[in-house]
């Protein structure tokens, strides 16, 4: 075999023995590319389907054989083929530029992991990789008749282009960091050329220009970008870019923090959970542990499991400072047991390293009744899958999570996140993930207590170098033994020893004592503090997070005269290593080390001089007036002030609920004395929403009644601030009732309540109102009242975009398209989908959550119109998007919708595969009645196509017994399938009977699309009974309806008998006066083709 070189990056070229090899057709080039970049061996049938989707399987396989033969004559010996599979010989004589490109990038990654990204070798690898990339993958090569190939090619291109972007970014940085300014600019220019709207690229270019003194070029780059963005609807320059621009223009206002207003000061607390602690400059470098952590990216999960005070967080901070991987950080606390709260922080944390990630998930979280957490997570995972670069998510203090739902969600994330993402968990207890399994699969990296203990050498470094205590080896050994290498113990000991006159004596006493280490040492440390600091530490220990102003509030009695400021004390404590950790860069929020806080609190509780409840009351007051409502409620409870807690909940629980903190509200209200709730209607309402969102309906009825009673009770008993809100209370109660009725599938009640609620809500754009309309639409749709549903959905479609409620807009449009299809108005259905897609394309949101359904609607219409190629293309997109959501319901409908296309194309195996995937989901998850209806009907259609009589009979028997049959619109599709099953079994009388009933119902409901098919099935029964004249009469009726929507495949897929009957009808002049001749001849042509 002669050496083969394949150049796919750019115009495709094939070189055999250093001479260009000319391949006969575009398809053979495409096939060679496909075989060289994919798996080692491909199934013949699969390849044939990808390249010749239009031909039947036999013909496709024939084409494949011919193309392979031609390839083999041009590159002799390189193609391996047997009866079932084909492949390209992967020997050392084969070279492919894509492969080489990936290998170079891999080498770059290794360099950067080893911290040598600025080395000559690394730069050479980058430059060589860049040289290989002559142009986009298979430039100019497209196969219009093989959409699957084009799609495969599209993803290859996108992936490679993403790699290229990363490469350019890295190379530009390397050039810039090694002082090659001009080359850096050139590279950054190439990067911006890939996507002129990509702002990080523009920012880099601006920075490079500015750094090399080309200020005006930097400013022009910005202005160009701004102009381009202006041409895009609803795009603005990002804040970071604008700030950079202003900086370069030299107009940045100096950021003086000054004395910010109270409310503003409180806001950054939201970010404190995401703050990556910065490694302290004077720490022991724990080289062994850092070395082990370098392997994080080889493991799915890294678990750091050790008790408090072993330095888990410190170690992670140190590691983050060293790792090249982007890291998202989330410090957990009790509040994260509220699953939606947890999710929104998870999104927030990831957004810090991955722009735009979780934007859909966030939209989902914002609906008043958000979908299940798994749906939100699914959307987030699909976003992670789109990210080109790897990433790490660190969850610190995981021991605070006790809620099994959160554990479960994390387990799911671990299992389903893309393989280049990694999770690091630091915890005092092993989390209930399947650690054994992960360990067995080599997917778990563990650092445990024994690993985190300070060794004698580390203790020596810490005590003698970092703390400069100058202790003897024996003293260090004694300390190490007494503290068992516990980091906090050593640190406390060092603090006690600082400036101690007789250290050896101290160590001897300490070693000889059998008191709990913490008690012994903290006492020593506190003793050395002045009284005012001791008092400060005790009183502020009630706070989970400390802020200068908040501490001032607590200390006001002590400090009213001295004029001291807490901010200064906090900064002093931080400086002197007294277990105070900053939670942001601007030193606004701090916390105590957990252990230290626990110890201080236990001492505070014993202290007689300080009234703890009073402290909590003050804290509650400060938190409320600074917008920290959840914290305020917690302090009110801790102050034993139930009435204050209730009032806070009444006022603020709504905000918390609509930002997803149901579990928190639920827990609060359950903590109240049981009787109290029934006297306070707002508590009933909030508890009702929280209960509803947690998916339990028990007791909801009672809560609604409780709230209603409160509404009619003597208004004097209500707190003053609630009085003007009575109308709002009424609306809330109605909303609750409606949501409950809808979940219970009490459709007419739902509609009634929705109408009442709509009357109560004056603002046409409120989300509450849009939800009411949508819920009403669903209730109408479920009962088959299409006109009512249409009207409601139409209104949602019109209003939702204005209120930024994109998800509802998409779902309403999908439902409207479905309604038009059912009515047989395929043109209108298609138009609705197309309009939606092109309006979303303008803002780059065409892949938004829920769009899988819309593409699926469109594919069905294209297929019906016999535009098979278009149908397949759109369907592939639908499945892609649906799979990205991982939502069972959406997946089932996408898979089901694909089945008729595949059966129609004779691809029964693929159809079966689709259904298999669907079955697994339907068995495990609840789906809407209409989705199940669609799915069932598709199963039967496949059995019939495969002549699987046994399955058909079994299913029919079961269906007859389950009394599910003929319940109108909701089961119409599977009822039709039932009729088909009966026909296949020769039970013609029964089939006809069923069909007559169905036809009446469909006609009455205006469902002409369905009616056309029902009449067609009746026609078939009559034809089989040899009642030709009657058959022709019904066929004519069916065709009249079919013509209105230009239905084709419904007829063509019936096959030979119908073609025969159609020709007979034409002979008899049956269709002449009623039917457009063009439609009939289209049908005949479709039969022939």
């Amino acid at each position, binding site marked *: 075999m002669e050496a083969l070189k394949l150049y796919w990056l750019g115009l495709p070229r094939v070189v055999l023995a250093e001479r260009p090899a000319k391949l006969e057709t575009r398809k053979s080039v495409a096939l060679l590319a496909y075989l060289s970049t994919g798996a080692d061996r491909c199934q013949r049938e699969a390849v044939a389907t990808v390249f010749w989707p239009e031909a039947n399987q036999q013909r496709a396989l024939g084409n494949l054989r011919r193309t392979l033969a031609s390839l083999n004559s041009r590159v002799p010996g390189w193609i391996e083929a047997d009866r079932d599979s084909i492949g390209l010989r992967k020997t050392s004589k084969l070279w492919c530029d894509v492969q080489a490109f990936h290998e170079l990038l891999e080498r770059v990654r290794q360099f950067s992991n080893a911290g040598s990204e600025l080395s000559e070798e690394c730069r050479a690898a980058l430059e060589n990789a860049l040289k290989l990339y002559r142009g986009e993958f298979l430039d100019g090569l497209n196969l219009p008749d093989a959409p699957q190939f084009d799609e495969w090619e599209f993803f290859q291109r996108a992936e490679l282009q993403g790699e290229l972007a990363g490469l350019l970014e890295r190379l530009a940085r390397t050039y810039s960091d090694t002082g090659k300014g001009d080359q850096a600019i050139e590279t950054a220019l190439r990067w911006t050329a890939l996507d002129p709207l990509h702002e990080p690229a523009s920012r880099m270019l601006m920075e490079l220009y500015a750094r090399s003194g080309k200020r005006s070029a930097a400013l022009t780059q910005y202005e160009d970008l701004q102009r381009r963005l202006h041409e895009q609807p609803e795009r603005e320059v990002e804040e970071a870019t604008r700030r950079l621009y202003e900086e370069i223009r030299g107009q940045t206002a100096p950021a003086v923090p000054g004395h910010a207003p109270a409310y503003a000061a409180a806001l950054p607390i939201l970010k404190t959970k995401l703050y990556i602690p910065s490694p302290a400059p004077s720490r022991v470098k724990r080289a062994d542990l850092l070395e082990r952590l370098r392997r994080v990216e080889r493991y799915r999960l890294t678990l750091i499991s050790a*008790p*408090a*005070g*072993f330095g888990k967080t410190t170690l992670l901070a140190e590691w983050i400072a060293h790792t090249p991987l982007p890291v998202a950080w989330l410090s957990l606390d009790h509040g994260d047991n509220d699953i939606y709260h947890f999710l929104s922080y998870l999104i927030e944390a990831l957004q810090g390293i991955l722009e735009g990630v979780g934007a859909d998930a966030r939209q989902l979280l914002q609906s008043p009744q958000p979908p299940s957490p798994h749906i939100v997570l699914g959307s987030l995972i699909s976003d992670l899958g789109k990210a080109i670069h790897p990433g790490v998510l660190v969850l610190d203090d995981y*021991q605070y999570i006790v*809620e099994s739902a959160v554990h479960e969600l994390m387990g799911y994330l671990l299992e389903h996140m893309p393989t280049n993402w990694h999770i690091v968990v630091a915890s*005092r*207890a092993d989390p209930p993930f399947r650690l054994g399994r992960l360990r067995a699969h080599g997917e778990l990296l563990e650092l445990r207590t024994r690993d985190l203990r300070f060794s004698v050498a580390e203790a020596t470094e810490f005590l003698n170098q970092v703390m400069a205590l100058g202790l003897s080896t024996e003293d260090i050994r004694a300390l190490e033994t007494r503290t068992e290498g*516990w980091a*906090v113990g050593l640190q406390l000991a060092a603090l006690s020893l600082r400036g101690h006159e007789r250290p050896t004596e101290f160590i001897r006493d300490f070693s000889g004592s*059998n*008191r*709990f*280490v*913490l*008690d012994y040492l903290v*006492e020593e440390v506190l003793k050395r503090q002045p009284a005012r600091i001791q008092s400060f530490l005790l009183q502020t220990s009630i706070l989970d997070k400390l802020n200068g102003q908040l501490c001032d509030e607590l200390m006001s009695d002590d400090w009213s005269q001295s004029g001291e400021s807490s901010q200064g004390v906090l900064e002093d404590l931080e400086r002197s290593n007294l277990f105070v950790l900053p939670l942001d860069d601007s030193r606004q929020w701090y916390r105590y080390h*957990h*252990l230290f806080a*626990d*110890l201080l*609190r*236990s*001492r505070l*509780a*014993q202290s007689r001089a300080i009234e703890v409840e009073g402290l909590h009351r003050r804290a509650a007051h400060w938190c409320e007036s600074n917008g920290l409502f959840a914290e305020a409620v917690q302090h009110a409870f801790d102050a034993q002030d139930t009435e204050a807690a209730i009032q806070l909940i009444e006022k603020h629980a709504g905000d918390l609920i609509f930002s997803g903190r149901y*579990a928190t509200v*639920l*827990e609060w209200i*359950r903590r109240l004395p049981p009787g109290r709730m029934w006297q306070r209607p707002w508590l009933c309402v909030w508890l009702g929403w929280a209960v509803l969102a*947690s998916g339990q309906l028990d007791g909801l009825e009672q809560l609604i009644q409780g709230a209603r009673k409160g509404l009619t009770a003597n208004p004097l008993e209500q707190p003053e601030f609630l009085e003007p809100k009575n109308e709002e209370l009424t609306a809330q109660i109605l909303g609750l009732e409606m949501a409950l009725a809808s979940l219970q599938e009490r459709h007419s009640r739902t509609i009634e309540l929705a109408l009442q609620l709509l009357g109560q809500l004056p603002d046409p754009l409120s989300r509450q109102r849009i939800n009411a309309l949508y819920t009403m639409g669903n209730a109408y749709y479920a009962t088959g009242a299409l006109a009512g549903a249409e009207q409601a959905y139409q209104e949602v479609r019109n209003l939702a975009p204005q209120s930024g409620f994109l998800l509802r807009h998409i779902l309403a449009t999908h439902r409207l398209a479905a309604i038009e299809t059912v009515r047989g108005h395929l043109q209108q259905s298609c138009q609705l989908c197309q309009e939606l897609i092109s309006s979303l394309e303008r803002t780059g949101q065409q892949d938004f959550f829920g769009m899988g359904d819309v593409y699926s609607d469109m594919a069905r219409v294209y297929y019906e119109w016999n535009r098979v190629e278009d149908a397949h293309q759109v369907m592939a997109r639908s499945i892609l998007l649906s799979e990205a959501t991982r939502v069972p319901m959406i997946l089932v409908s996408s898979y089901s919708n694909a089945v008729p296309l595949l059966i129609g194309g004779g691809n029964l195996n693929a159809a079966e595969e689709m259904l298999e995937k669907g079955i697994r989901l339907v068995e495990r998850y609840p789906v809407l009645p209409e989705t199940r209806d669609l799915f069932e009907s598709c199963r039967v259609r496949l059995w019939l196509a495969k002549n699987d009589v046994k399955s058909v009979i079994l299913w029919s028997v079961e269906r007859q017994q389950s009394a599910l049959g003929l319940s109108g619109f909701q089961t119409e599709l599977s009822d039709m399938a039932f009729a088909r099953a009966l026909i296949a079994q020769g039970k013609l009388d029964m089939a006809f009977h069923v069909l007559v009933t169905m036809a009446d119902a469909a006609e009455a409901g205006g469902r002409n699309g369905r009616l056309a098919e029902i009449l067609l099935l009746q026609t078939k029964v009559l034809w089989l009974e040899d009642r030709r004249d009657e058959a022709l009469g019904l066929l004519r009726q069916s065709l009249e309806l079919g013509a209105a929507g230009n239905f084709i495949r419904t007829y063509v897929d019936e096959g030979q008998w119908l073609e025969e009957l159609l020709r007979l009808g034409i002979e008899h002049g049956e269709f002449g006066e009623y039917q457009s001749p063009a439609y009939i001849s289209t049908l005949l042509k479709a039969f022939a083709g």
Partner: protein
Amino acid sequence: MASVEQDSPDSGKSLPGNTSNVYEIQVRGILDDHWQQWFEGMTLRADASFDGGQGCTLIIGPLADQPALHGVLERIRDLNLALISIRRLPDGPKSPEESLAASQCESDRNGTA
């Protein structure tokens, strides 16, 4: 969010007749008195001679149910206290001294923990 139900303390059916809800938790080292508040409603008993002078503390008292017990264990974990043993004391009124004596006998039997 599971509502906290009154989990009956005698859910351990393997101990027929034992309805005591008094637990005794043994941790290494001697705890200062101020921790009394931390383990609400329980008393702390120090035993300086335990394990050849290493010392231990017994945390003894009634706990309403299993979740309450887990709460206490969680606190012990959070303080990085080494847990040695935990048991439910047998029925009948018993002074802390008696139970201390009982536990000492036990630890003697088992050797060092």
